[in-house]
């Protein structure tokens, strides 16, 4: 009886129907496994909750679901034994939510029946494992092709030599493995011959020798990430001899310079993606010698590099299939932009975010030739005006993504043009702009809009937002941070018009009340809810959200002074998917915090300036909440709690961050923006 209630309460209609059908006729027995699996594929695609409902119908469904499941993402390492025995066919094990993975855990994974089917394992956020655990994993899971060891800062060369035993490995991420040196990389190069992707980002112990050996031994390599490695020109010839190399990232390789690149006979012909961000010593000379033979290059990233001049643009002219250029943070000249516009014919993506020197003249002459442009990022191009916007909107009518945060000289009339001409927009970032209700009304014509950011737009009001709510039914993401003109009616329009909304940020919209939250509780897909600094919100509104939005996983109610323990209790009861919560400056006390500890998913809490919180209550909550990964606390608690407690929690995988900011009073939005501009100037 109870189980049935659960299914009805949480599952979709289809789940309910199958339940009754199975009970009556057991038609599922007639279906082959393939068909049932195909049904389950669709079910899993819609929501993981539906799969769960399915598995709880009866024993046979439970077994079918166990055999069907391919991907596991457990929250706790202590669940591993049971879920691994339940799901024998798991191909991908994502342990990124388990901070504590020991050698014993890995040995367990390698012992279970899923060891043969396991193809991919993600250990990027896990710590506490070592050489021996990895060795038992790779020796027993013979079909492993992907291992993510990013952030494993404790691993040494011995661990790398264990990885080298995975002879079938194709993808390996070693980001931030700072203790691994050339010796370990050498083992991997010799052992894992089939490698197609390897990432060495921030592996500061790896030098030319290791990279060269990888390039010599792993001929199948498609993707190579050398970001921030202390490599020099020495390793380049070997890399460019790789026959299939498509993706090369040289971000922040300060040891590579023009001289080294000039010495290369020819570039890499198979290259499709090249990232040379933050390479201070490479100018257009080196670039042109590197990409001289790369006729297939599609994506080029030169962020924070040398200035974009005519010479640099000219070096791009031999790239017929170039589709994407990212020049973020570069110094840009108008002639350079003009030349890019005329030389690169089929650009689909262009990013000029935070570029200095972007003018109406340059940008207009660039976009005027790019009819196919899909994504444009002109964040913080503070010199452009309505002239640019007019050109962009008249030429690039297929634009799907436009980011123009802080284009402060663009007048409010210009935004009307965006809505009039670019009907295919899916993503629009208008943060910190002069847009007003007229502009919003015009933008509401973009029926495909799914992400809209209107933070710090002080000219908009409920009127404009109601147009969005009325016409943009596919909206999933809405940011109204510090747009003080928004009140309850605006949110009401969104809540009723955009049922798919997953993320909403209404921080510092001070006039928002509980009624907005009660409306939003209808949006069952809501995952992220941020309402910082809304003093009118009470526990009542929060309870409504908790009850209605069961998938909520991120909640920020900092500075909502009226939220108290009464809000926490329903939250702990209903929001069992909550992962991250910020409670600073609220009226929550020990009781509220302790009740939150019952949420087994909870991983990150921020509790600063809670007046009702005592040291003992905090300690009890921390101990009770077993899945915590990150806790932000006020420094004053540090001497009040015993050191042994911290050691215990850190052994569980929890990290503490200490803050000692003073209690801050809130400013009004206009005041805040003036202050922001002062800082910017």
């Amino acid at each position: 009886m109870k189980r049935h209630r659960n299914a009805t309460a949480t599952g979709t209609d289809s789940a309910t129907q199958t339940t009754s059908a199975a009970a009556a006729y057991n038609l599922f027995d007639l279906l082959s496994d393939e068909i049932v699996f195909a049904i389950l594929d669709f079910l899993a695609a819609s929501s993981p909750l539906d799969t769960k409902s399915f598995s709880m119908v009866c024993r046979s469904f439970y077994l079918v679901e166990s055999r069907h499941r391919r991907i596991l993402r457990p929250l706790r390492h202590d669940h591993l034994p049971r879920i691994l025995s339940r799901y024998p066919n798991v191909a991908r094990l994502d342990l990124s939510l388990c901070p504590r993975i020991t050698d014993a855990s890995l040995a367990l994974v390698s012992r279970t029946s899923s060891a043969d089917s396991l193809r991919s394992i993600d250990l990027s956020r896990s710590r506490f494992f070592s050489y021996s655990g990895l060795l038992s994993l790779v020796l027993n899971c013979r079909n492993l092709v992907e291992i993510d060891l990013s952030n494993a800062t404790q691993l040494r060369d011995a661990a790398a030599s264990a990885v080298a035993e995975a002879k079938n490995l194709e993808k390996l991420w070693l980001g931030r493995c700072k203790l691994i040196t050339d010796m370990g990389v050498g083992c991997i190069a010799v052992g894992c011959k089939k490698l197609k992707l390897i990432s060495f980002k921030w592996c500061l112990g790896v030098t030319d020798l290791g990279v060269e050996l990888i390039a010599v031994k792993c001929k199948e390599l498609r993707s190579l990430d050398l970001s921030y490695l202390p490599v020099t020109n020495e390793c380049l010839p070997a890399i460019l001899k790789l026959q299939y190399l498509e993706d090369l990232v040289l971000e922040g390789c300060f040891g590579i310079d023009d001289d080294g690149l000039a010495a290369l006979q020819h570039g890499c012909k198979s290259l499709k993606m090249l990232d040379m961000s933050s390479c201070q010593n490479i100018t257009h000379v080196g670039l042109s010698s590197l990409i001289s033979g790369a006729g297939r290059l599609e994506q080029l990233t030169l962020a924070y590099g040398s200035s974009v001049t005519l010479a640099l643009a000219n070096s791009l002219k031999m790239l017929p299939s170039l589709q994407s250029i990212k020049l973020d943070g570069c110094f840009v000249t108008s002639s350079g932009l003009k030349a890019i516009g005329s030389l690169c014919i089929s650009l689909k993506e262009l990013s000029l975010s935070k570029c200095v020197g972007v003018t109406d003249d340059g940008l207009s002459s660039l976009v005027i030739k790019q009819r196919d442009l899909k994504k444009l990022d002109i964040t913080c191009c503070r010199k452009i005006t309505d002239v640019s916007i007019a050109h962009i909107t008249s030429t690039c009518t297929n634009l799907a993504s436009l980011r123009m945060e802080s284009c402060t000289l663009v007048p409010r009339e210009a935004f009307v043009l965006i809505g009039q001409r670019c009907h295919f927009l899916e993503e629009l970032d208008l943060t910190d702009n002069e847009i007003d209700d007229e502009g919003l009304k015009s933008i509401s014509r973009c029926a495909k809009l799914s992400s809209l950011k209107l933070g710090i737009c002080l000219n908009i009001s409920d009127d404009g937002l109601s147009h969005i709510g009325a016409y943009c039914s596919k909206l999933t993401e809405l940011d109204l941070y510090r747009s003080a003109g928004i009140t309850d009616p605006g949110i009401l329009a969104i809540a009723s018009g955009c049922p798919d909304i997953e993320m909403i940020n209404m921080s510092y919209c001070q006039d928002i009340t509980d009624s907005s939250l009660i409306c939003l509780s209808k949006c069952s897909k809501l995952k992220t809810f941020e309402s910082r600094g809304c003093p009118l919100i009470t526990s009542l509104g929060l309870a409504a959200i908790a009850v209605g939005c069961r998938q909520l996983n991120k909640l920020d109610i900092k500075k909502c002074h009226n939220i108290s323990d009464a809000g926490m209790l329903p939250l702990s009861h209903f929001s069992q998917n909550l992962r991250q919560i910020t409670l600073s400056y609220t009226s929550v006390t020990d009781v509220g915090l302790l009740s939150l500890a019952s949420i087994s998913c909870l991983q990150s809490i921020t509790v600063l300036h809670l007046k009702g919180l005592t040291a003992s209550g905090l300690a009890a909550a921390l101990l009770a909440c077993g899945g915590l990964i990150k806790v932000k606390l006020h420094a004053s608690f540090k001497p009040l709690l015993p050191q042994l407690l911290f050691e215990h929690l850190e052994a569980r995988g929890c990290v503490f961050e200490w803050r000692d900011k003073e209690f801050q009073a809130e400013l009004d939005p206009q005041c805040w923006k003036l202050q922001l501009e002062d800082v910017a100037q």
Partner: protein
Amino acid sequence: MDPEDEICGDTWGTKSTSSNSLQQNSADFGLQQQLEKKWDNNSSPIMDYGFRIGQEQPPFHGQVNCQINNSIQGNDNNTNDNKPPEWDPSAMLNNLSFLEQKIHQLQGMVHLIITRKGQVPSKPDEVLTQQQQQLITADLTSIIVQLISTAGTLLPSVKTIGQFGQFTPKPAAVSPEQQQQQQSNNSMDVEHNYSTTEEHEEHEDGETEHLPPGSYEILQLEKEEILAPHTHFCTICGKGFKRDANLRMHMRGHGDEYKTPAALAKPPTVKEVGSAAEPVIIKRYSCPFSGCKRNKDHKKFQPLKTILCVKNHYKRTHCDKSYVCSRCNTKKFSVMADLKTHEKHCGRDKWLCSCGTTFSRKDKLFGHIALFQGHTPAIPPDETKTVVALAPTDDPAAAANKLADGSGLATMDFNSGAQALMDFKSVDDPAGAAAVASCFSPLNFDSCNFVGGFPEFNRQGFDDSEASFSFLLSGGSCNYSSQKTGGES
């Protein structure tokens, strides 16, 4: 031809006619070479003279060769003879090497003339050939004159001549110019007895064929010469020394005349002497081992630069490795210095390959691995141990147990109430965890009441393992849903 030539001619005239004056400053090679240079510049005053020598040259060529060969043979025979040392041997040595060079030059020239003559048998252009001949003979003359004058300086003093008479080569084959210097030839033979290895070089017949005059010349030492432990011998007692300086120190014991600063001074090297006016002819060496790449008969012959190179090369490549490293007992060397160098680093080769080979440098190891299939870098075993040791304890419960005094705090009832909700399972020891909480003795909040106040929060059958999609499985008695907004309904 120009005024300077006149002066040069005069200078030469005075010097060449009086060999005695040259003899006085016997070590003054700079002057002689200067002279030679001047001779090269002006050929006109002695044109006729030179031409005459040029015509005579075929017999001359044979004579010189013969003479030198004789002298070398004689020298071999008489290595151990004691000679009264009345002159400075090192100066003599220099003179001899100089002579040797000059003879080589002569050989080259003469050979050139022969080939020219062979090429132009019908003499189509009389004038041209004449001019060439004139030039060559002028050079030849200058060289011969130098040869004579230098040979003259080799005469140390009158009283030694008689003693060396027995070694005199046959005078019949000597040209008139050299006949005048008969004495000097004698002394040259004597000098060979005390020579360093440099004097033992054999001259190759074909060396000038593929090398233009003025290019380097190839010298080849015999195996015995290369392996000889001593290269400097005392002329009095015959004791051998490795170093020239040691010999000079030794010589002091044979009498006061060896204690003069001049006798003890380091003899100037050929290079120093020659650098003054004329570029020294570059010498290169050949390894006597036939088939070796360093042997002059090899197709891709690569000459050795110095005698030391010859010695080290020969020992390293063609001799047994008799010096064994006492530390590792595996590495063997044939040159002592190599062993010394190895011993400095032995045991400190930290770059290890899986095949057991060690390298002192990482790049060498990686070059080795890149070259061979299946070889991998070997991680030192101690590293794996330390990693294991550094790993934190596997059991969080152990950490919790450290905290617990064993006092099971039954009063902490919120545990039992919220057990299903709160994940004390991860701690594995609720009592231990509770004991931590009990450190804060005034637990002011009433945990029992708190949990008891919400009995509906108990969720039986909550499957801990499915927390990844844990959603509410609560009973219908949730007060909140009925109390509050009715959001659930």
